């Protein structure tokens, strides 16, 4: 029989073709919220504010919650008369949970001549959109991107949330002092700047406090099965006292479930990326002994928080998450700066935002520091049988 290499070549070619095709597909979901307003000239009597966020894709609840928070804030501002009689209006562009799309979304907002830009949630998306705002001298306030590099883009980029080094240090302190953990394993998302940054800062803080990292493993956002890596973490010597999973809720929920299935019962820790009610859908309703740091707790007795939670419930019929609160805070803080600014030009508005001091936000009292990051407190939430509940508040050291 004569060997024939043709089928092999054909199949290898097909496999390569399929790869390219899969690559295209990953980036294809066109936004539901996007596009509609493109090309319209701004009305002179309204102040346009742009929001870019993941309205679809695997971080869809992030974008939707943030957008809800922003729209609630704008509604309240307009009901109270707007800015000297001028109404504010939000234009939302979808990033489809994709960094490349985030860049396009911000370009569209710039074309619409927005006064300021709010967004994004995922740090890698904010880092794609930020440089465009900086170049066009349009102030951008990220509601909830926690990677330090986001505001390092330039002097037009701000945020109302705390940053990863602070958040990771809070989680490390919680692990060391409240849980008394001496060893930790880290299981992070290698494809997300948020997750990698969190890992680095946790490692630094945890070892500084006398702890040891015994095992590190990574996954990617497209993974569905994490048992291979978890089995390796379980076999680490010495055994970890806790496992840090600094990813987003879709994967973190599944990871927590699969860890418990593999009889890994130590505390599992995370950051604000866990904060979505969908976490319980993926993890199941019988998870305990898992904790994450967050920006706010809805069961906080603070009057500002209470008022926001009630207004949100009345408008959307659901309990807000922290992202909604941060979206709300970003819009309210922007409006506060607009009131103080000499004009709504980029440089004037930028200076007004930079001068923000003790702004009474839902997510805490916010002061902009020299790095354009918010100085504020953090809370630890506990995953408890299908709900999140307040565990403890950690003040800024």
């Amino acid at each position, binding site marked *: 029989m004569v060997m024939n290499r043709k089928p092999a070549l054909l199949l290898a070619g097909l*496999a390569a073709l399929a790869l390219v095709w899969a690559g295209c597909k990953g980036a294809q979901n066109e936004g539901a919220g996007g596009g509609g307003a493109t090309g319209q000239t701004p009305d002179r009597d309204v102040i346009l504010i742009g929001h870019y966020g993941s309205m679809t894709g695997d971080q869809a609840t992030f974008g939707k919650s943030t957008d809800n928070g922003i729209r609630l804030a704008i509604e309240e501002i307009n009901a109270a008369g707007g800015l000297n009689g001028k109404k504010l209006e939000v234009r939302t562009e979808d990033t489809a949970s994709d960094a490349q799309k985030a860049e396009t979304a911000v370009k569209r907002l710039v074309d619409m001549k927005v006064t300021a830009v709010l967004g994004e949630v995922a740090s890698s998306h904010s880092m794609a959109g930020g440089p465009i705002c900086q170049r066009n001298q349009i102030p951008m306030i990220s509601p909830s991107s926690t990677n330090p590099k986001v505001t390092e883009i330039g002097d037009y980029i701000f945020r109302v949330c705390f940053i990863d080094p602070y958040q990771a240090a809070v989680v490390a302190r919680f692990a060391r002092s409240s849980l008394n953990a001496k060893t930790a394993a880290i299981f992070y998302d290698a494809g997300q700047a948020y997750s990698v940054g969190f890992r680095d800062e946790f490692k630094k803080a945890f070892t500084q406090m006398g702890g040891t990292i015994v095992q590190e493993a990574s996954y990617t956002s497209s993974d569905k099965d994490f048992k291979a890596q978890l089995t390796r973490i379980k076999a680490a010597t010495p055994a970890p006292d806790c496992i840090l999973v600094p990813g987003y809720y879709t994967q973190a929920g599944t990871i927590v479930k699969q860890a418990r299935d593999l009889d890994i019962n130590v505390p599992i820790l995370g950051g604000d990326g866990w904060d979505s009610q969908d976490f319980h859908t993926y993890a199941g309703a019988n998870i305990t002994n898992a904790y994450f740091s967050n920006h706010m707790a809805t069961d906080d007795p603070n009057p500002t928080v209470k008022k926001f939670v009630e207004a949100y419930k009345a408008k959307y019929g659901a309990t807000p998450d922290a992202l909604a609160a941060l979206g709300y805070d970003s819009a309210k803080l922007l409006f506060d700066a607009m009131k103080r600014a000499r004009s709504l030009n980029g440089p004037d508005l930028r200076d007004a935002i930079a001068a923000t001091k003790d702004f009474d936000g839902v997510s805490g009292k916010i002061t902009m520091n020299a790095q354009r990051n918010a100085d504020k407190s953090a809370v630890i939430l506990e995953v408890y049988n299908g709900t999140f509940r307040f565990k403890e508040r950690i003040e800024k050291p």
Partner: protein
Amino acid sequence: MEALQLFLQQLINGIQIGSVYALIAVGYTMVYGVLRFINFAHGDVYMLGAYFGLFAVTGLLANQTPLVQGLAGLLICMAACGAIGVLIERAAYRPIRKSGRLAALITAIGVSFLLSNGAQALFEARPRAYIISGIGDPFKLNFGALQLILDKGQLIILLAAIVLTLLLVYIVRFTTVGKAIRAVSFDREAASLMGINTDTVITLTFLIGSSLAGAAGLLSYGLTRNNFDPLLGVALGLKAFIAAVLGGIGNIAGAVLGGLLMGLAEAFVGGSELSPFRDAFAFLILISVLMFRPAGILGKNVVEKV
């Protein structure tokens, strides 16, 4: 001892992943065997299976016992996906069957886009998850100091994969329908000259392959609570396709073997320092096998007819 425990646990993890790949790979391989073309929409049919399972278990069968949910859900998924497979063949592939391989390939990619985007429009883009309740805690098998953990849901997946594959082998080997499928696969023109209705055989092939993908859709998500979204068919379908090529495309036993090998490679690479390169390894294995056995592990090299 600990190393042995780790090895055996990864072996179990790998076989569990592999059994799902095997079920999907069988669909690729059957269609290739009969039509000599890759049905790239097959992974998306699997994705639809996961959604049909979600709607069946949490909607239609919400008040039934877990056993009824599982079995009736399986039948619903197999029937719905089988019907969709047949519909795809009728509407998209049959009209261009004589237009050459490239046209068929492009059409398949088009159908795949249609299904994944259609699912996004209909079912929302956010990932979903569900589980047929009552599966209970995983088995813990103790052999002295050795403890292995076996998830019941994944054990059922493995058993179902074995049963469905054996059923398929029985159909193809020992029934008249199977004989017809093999005849068409061997030489379509000659088979049609012998009085075999090749259109019916092709329809049947799509029916069987797609219903297996539907079964895999329900099993791999409804029994594990793993999350899924409308784009999952692309990534998983690609891996199952590699599995089919690896085992020898056109060969059913090869597809099962390829699927299991892919699952094992994923578990062992994923559980090592090389975990970020897990998917790259799939291609590395494919390339190295094709270098030495161009037709795949169990594939036969045939002389091209000129």
